């Protein structure tokens, strides 16, 4: 039997998945396969509508493909009890609305639910984990605030804290830094990189920020029209030719002398009057 996390065995993968949105004429994914090895930091990039969010939801097990299979630690994800799955995977979704007046600390504590018995109350170690996650997200002084009293950046950080409090092996993030300012953007990526290096946390994050994705991801997957058109180290994925083809944008790709990562300087849309 293969141990989950063993080198070479993917911790999370999709095999020939098929998916069609409710009411859509054509399927989004016809036959998509992709494997994430333990400890990888994968950036999923691609234009609007390319299927980044859907792929993340399928990987998270919150939505099911109509064909093919999603495997978590070598097992069909549908066969894994939900609480066990939630101890392995944490997800930060784009939609960040929490109803009612839950405090920031209560929201971080929600991340502990998969580790509690069905009727159990949070234990001191759960409070400790939630508080530590909030402190890492710069929210130590905001514990008693309600989510709707926070700025959108703070709100996003509270939801990331909930994911960290889950102490997962894998964290999936949909545009985690879209609402964040420069400082918190870099801070969150630095924390994810540290957790990735120190604890072997596997990270899959979608992004529209190509430079950030290239700088932090050890691997980029470029989605376009439901296919992974490029997959590999950032320097091999981000080329001027591909950006022209996929993003319909004329861009220069250079190498950051400090980090060695490629960075993209957009110049102009290929079709200024609109789409092709």
């Amino acid at each position, binding site marked *: 039997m293969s141990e989950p996390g063993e080198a070479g065995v993917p911790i999370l993968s999709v095999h020939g998945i098929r998916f069609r949105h*409710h009411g859509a004429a054509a399927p989004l994914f016809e036959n998509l396969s992709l494997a994430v090895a333990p400890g990888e930091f994968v950036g999923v990039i691609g234009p609007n509508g390319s299927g980044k969010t859907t792929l993340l939801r399928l990987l998270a097990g919150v939505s099911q493909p109509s064909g093919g299979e999603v495997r978590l630690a070598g097992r069909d994800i549908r066969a894994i009890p939900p609480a066990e799955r*939630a101890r392995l995977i944490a997800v930060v*979704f784009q939609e960040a609305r929490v*109803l009612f007046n839950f405090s920031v600390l209560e929201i971080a504590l929600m991340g502990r*639910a998969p580790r509690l018995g069905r009727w159990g109350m949070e234990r001191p170690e759960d409070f400790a984990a939630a508080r530590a996650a909030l402190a890492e997200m710069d929210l130590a002084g905001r514990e*008693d605030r309600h989510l709707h009293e926070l700025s959108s950046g703070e709100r996003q950080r509270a939801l990331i804290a909930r994911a960290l409090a889950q102490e997962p092996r894998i964290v999936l993030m949909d545009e985690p830094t879209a609402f964040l300012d420069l400082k918190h953007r870099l801070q969150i990526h630095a924390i994810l990189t540290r957790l990735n290096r120190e604890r072997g946390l596997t990270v899959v994050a979608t992004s529209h920020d190509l430079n950030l994705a290239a700088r932090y991801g050890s691997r980029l997957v470029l989605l376009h029209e439901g296919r992974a058109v490029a997959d590999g180290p950032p320097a091999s994925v981000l080329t001027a030719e591909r950006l022209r083809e996929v993003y319909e944008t004329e861009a220069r790709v250079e190498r950051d002398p400090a980090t060695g990562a490629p960075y993209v300087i957009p110049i102009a849309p290929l079709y200024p009057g609109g789409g092709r």
Partner: protein
Amino acid sequence: MAPLTSRRLWVALGLLSAGFAASVAICASIGSSHHTILELFRQSTGDDTAAATILRIRLPRILMAAFAGAALGASGTVFQAVLRNPLADPYILGVSGGAALGAFLATAAGLQALAPALPVREAAAFLGAAATVGSLFLLSSAGGRLLSYPMLLIGVIMNTVYLSVILLIETVVDFTRLHGVRLWMIGSIPIEEYGVIAGMSVVLVLGIAGLSLAGRDLNLLSAGEDAARSLGVTVERTRLVTVLLASLITAAVVSVAGPIGFVGLIVPHAARLVFGPDHRLLVPASALTGAIFLVIADTAARTVMAPTEIPVGVITALCGGPFFLWLYRRQGGSGYFE
């Protein structure tokens, strides 16, 4: 407010239970004949009228009011969380109306008279409530998501149609068999036999306990359907079980007391202001708060203009409407109702 701990949970429920006991004792001592509950504990009086008044008339009605308040408070809290809609309540969504129509049809068609020993009326009320919730889910979901505002609109429409159908049948059918329908439709608490009260207490205690035990799943659902799933909640099962239990307890009280408005809407919000949003406490706390509120409201209904009685639904609407408007103004800008 600090997160919920076991200590705060039990202290809050203890205080609420004490408050409930006190409201029952006080309201049982108020009425047109001046008997107080203390007279029951005086050993030597040969006078049985105090016991008769309190035990046969006031107490059964008080208990029924408490049940109605508890069921509507708890189910309102649950509907708000499960449907992810702070404006949801069994009355507005048409669940009470569906239960009322079911109970009314069973009576008007003479089904209850055919089998007087069976809870036909209650079963019909439950079917009406469950069918309403089922239609709400079907009609207000698109692409696997529930849409809050269409749901409210559909609920309001169904409620209006139900009440019109009841009035239509009442106008057409033999009047004597449907005596008191109009009073019942606004919501009023009847005096029932202790057998009925005992049966109802079993249904309600089990139903509210079941809903309270789903409290943590309801918390996670407040953070969104996807978030709840990613945190290990089996959303479809939780939704089915809680909605059926909430419909069951709503139907149980509507079948005897009629569709009482506003309790299921304002009690959860009032309880949330005092006890916080955690459903493990909020569900039982809303039940007890609702019980206290309706016991007091019903005592007011039978005493304020005595000997004329005001339907309790009138009192709850007169208290609930202004409270809700105040709450809406207070929380309106904060995202609480969005």
